[in-house]
């Protein structure tokens, strides 16, 4: 994009027709190479699914049936009948809100702890065994204890997100800090940066590629955990929506919700990756 701009800039008068052609050609090849293959594969899979589930007595609904049964949910994502009976957009937003709280707490705490562990060998020796044991605890195993602690479902769900997302953030941050090249430290020492300046100007940017890979894993895990946690705590949220649909035998609703969950998870991942790419320009290991 930038290249075509700079090349075209000196000769704007003659450029437009040929540039349009170039643009159109690029769009066409992008479509053929990147958009068409997934569309074809998805189409084929849906066709197979349709064939398998159209037989009488099939346990799961075929895609056509899913769409027709959930048409109201698809077309009216923002309805609100009070209580848990709200549109899918509200359900997803409620889940995203919990994830946002838990994840942001995990980012702040995780990066801070990661910096501590990355900087201090003593802290590493003291905390690392604890981290290695705690990070293997499955997210849902934290739910009862946090319910006992918080006495309320919403903070418990947020805590589960927090405790799920924090480990990869801590571990990646500390690895990033430990891998800061000696030369960068020496540059900082020669120009006598103080601790705060070193933290902001050298440490964070130098470790940013690692930190962001931790953040990316963390956001994925958060989204995994929230669905499971919400199934248990109830209330508005896409997780409980799925559980509720199961209890009401609305299998089509479940399938629609799964599609939404997948898409949102994908978008979250891409969003963090995009921010990471913007922030770590020039530093990325690739």
């Amino acid at each position, binding site marked *: 994009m930038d290249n075509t701009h700079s090349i075209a800039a000196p000769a704007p008068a003659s450029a437009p027709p040929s540039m349009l052609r170039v643009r159109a050609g690029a769009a066409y090849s992008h479509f053929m190479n990147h958009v068409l293959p997934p569309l074809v594969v998805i189409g084929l899979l849906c066709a197979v699914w349709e064939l398998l589930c159209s037989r009488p007595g099939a346990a799961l609904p075929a895609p056509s049936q899913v769409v027709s049964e959930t048409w109201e949910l698809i077309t009216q994502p923002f309805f609100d009948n009070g209580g848990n009976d709200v549109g899918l957009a509200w359900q997803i937003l409620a889940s995203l809100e919990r994830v946002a709280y838990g994840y942001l707490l995990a980012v702040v705490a995780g990066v801070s702890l990661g910096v501590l562990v990355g900087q201090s060998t003593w802290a590493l020796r003291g905390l690392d065994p604890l981290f290695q044991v705690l990070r293997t605890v499955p997210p849902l195993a934290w739910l009862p204890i946090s319910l006992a602690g918080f006495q309320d479902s919403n903070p418990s769900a947020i805590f589960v997100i927090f405790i799920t997302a924090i480990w990869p953030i801590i571990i990646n941050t500390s690895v990033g800090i430990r891998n800061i090249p000696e*030369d960068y430290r*020496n*540059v900082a*020492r*020669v*120009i*006598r940066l103080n601790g705060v300046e070193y933290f902001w100007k050298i440490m964070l940017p130098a470790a940013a590629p690692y930190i962001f890979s931790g953040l990316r894993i963390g956001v994925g895990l958060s989204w995994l955990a929230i669905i499971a946690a919400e199934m248990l705590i109830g209330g508005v949220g896409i997780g409980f929506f799925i559980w509720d649909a199961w209890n009401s035998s609305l299998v089509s609703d479940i399938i629609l919700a799964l599609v939404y969950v997948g898409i949102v998870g994908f978008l979250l991942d891409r969003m963090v990756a995009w921010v990471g790419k913007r922030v770590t320009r*020039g*530093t990325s290991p690739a």
Partner: protein
Amino acid sequence: MSQPYLSISRVDMDFSRGGVTNPVLRDVNLDVQRGEYISLIGHSGCGKSTVLNIVAGLLRATSGGVIVDGREVNSPGPDRALVFQNHSLLPWLTVYQNVEIAVQKIFKGKRSAAEQRDWILHNLDMVSMSHALDRLPAEISGGMKQRVGIARALAMEPKVLLLDEPFGALDALTRAHLQDEVMRIQSELQNTVMMITHDVDEAVLLSDRIVMMTNGPSATIGQVLDIDLPRPRDRLALADDPRYTHYRHEVLSFLYEKQRKVESIANARARGAASTREAAALRA
């Protein structure tokens, strides 16, 4: 004779790890006058980088000390700006910002923002990098990165400029070009320079004096050679100059006759261990 500008006196350096002490430097003494260009040359592993790091303040000598302009060195500082072999630009900053980070810190409160900006541009101009101010290090060549590294060091207005094999990673043509630039800049600014090299031609061409180091362990200064060639020096004219050939021969005979490297596996191992120790000590 006046007080030397930079004085290294009776420096010993040991690296110890796991209770084993490895003597790297023994009794290194060197006086450098203001405006002098000194090269340190020696076989790899002889401890010349250690000497430079001690002058830079990145390492503390086990005993002895370094005095620059009447002050003892005990920590790194911008008065002893370092140009690293691998340029060590910060990859997330542009060319301009890489110089700016040093200038901002050093001249904070002493020069206005506009003066700082002019100063950054002036130094980048001096190394002919004004055309690439907004490029990231990944987008410029190795020679250009080294130019920016030199600009960053010069911008600190160092009392002593320390060059750690600054041209080592460059191809021959780029290296020659950059050597000429450094000579030109040095003749303009009259910097005091201490450069590590393992390139004999580079040492003879650039230096006022060549300090030759013996092999380690317990390395020290074996011989100091005054290079009495008029400046400005021209590499083509000098190539046939008998004095140049003579100096070149002197250094080569020191390196390959008096201090011939006996490469045995045991030595290489010991040296490998020593250099990892050195790295470990730098990190500590």
